[in-house]
């Protein structure tokens, strides 16, 4: 791989995930290519919310998407640490099955004080997202 193409922030993303206890509890990881990041939530039994229909818990999916959005803001910024969330809206579009979940986030606007981010999670088909998130983060250091 051409070292000039890799994002130096990518290693930091990995380090953040490793020292975040809650990210470890979820078991998520991230793959970074330049400014593009895909988050992966490997399926685990503890992520289930409804045992009868074997669906992932909405709270686990929301947590995963919030972390993905937060890390994407960090990736494309020069912030010393990940941003703090102000608010978020989660749309549960389809049932999350007992399988791996993937997510990508898009920074719609990076302002001086706030960032607007959209994130989507999908399973076998990216065109059929399981859950969508819209979030605002505080990016000002003061």
């Amino acid at each position, binding site marked *: 791989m051409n070292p000039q193409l890799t994002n130096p922030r990518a290693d930091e993303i990995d380090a953040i995930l490793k020292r975040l206890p809650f990210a470890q509890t979820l078991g998520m990881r991230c793959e970074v290519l330049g400014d593009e990041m895909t988050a992966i939530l490997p399926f685990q039994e503890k992520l289930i919310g409804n045992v009868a229909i074997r669906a992932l818990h909405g*709270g686990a999916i*929301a947590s995963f998407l919030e972390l993905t959005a937060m890390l994407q803001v960090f990736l494309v910024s020069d912030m010393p640490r990940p941003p703090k969330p102000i608010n978020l809206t989660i749309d549960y579009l389809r049932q999350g099955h007992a399988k791996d979940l993937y997510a990508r986030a898009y920074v719609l606007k990076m302002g001086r004080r706030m960032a607007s981010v959209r994130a989507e999670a999908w399973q076998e088909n990216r065109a059929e997202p399981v859950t969508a998130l819209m979030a605002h983060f505080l990016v000002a250091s003061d």
Partner: protein
Amino acid sequence: MNDKPKQQYDIAAIMNENINVMRDVVPWANETRFRVTKVEKGHVFGIQPWEAHLVGDPETGVIHGGVITTFLDNLCGMACTSAMTEMRFVATIDLRIDYMRPAEKGREIIGEAECYHLTRTVCFTRAWAYHETRDKLIATAAGTFAINKARLGGSKK
């Protein structure tokens, strides 16, 4: 179970009797360790303890927002069921969370959810998370839930 369509149930009372079962059957709720403490009709209370494995900021030791989302999502869903006259599953349509201030390290969070309107298909809820009183909020939530047609227990209509 003898399910007559017109039969009215005190769902809140049934939920109160099964207060621990409701969490124990949900693996992710067991992982985040919250407890439901009280169920009234359309109103549910719970406690989210501070746990090291839920920390979202290693510098401050504050638990991650996703834990609060999980907690309030669950309480809102239970508030919907408790407001009904027959036992039905609900599914979150959407949920909005506003973070007012970080929760304090090592302290448990009190959560409170209410279902303030109910139609045949949709429930409207709001919820609050705080340490002491609702005057000093950690987060608020507003959620809508779809009421599933099938009754719990699988008996047909």
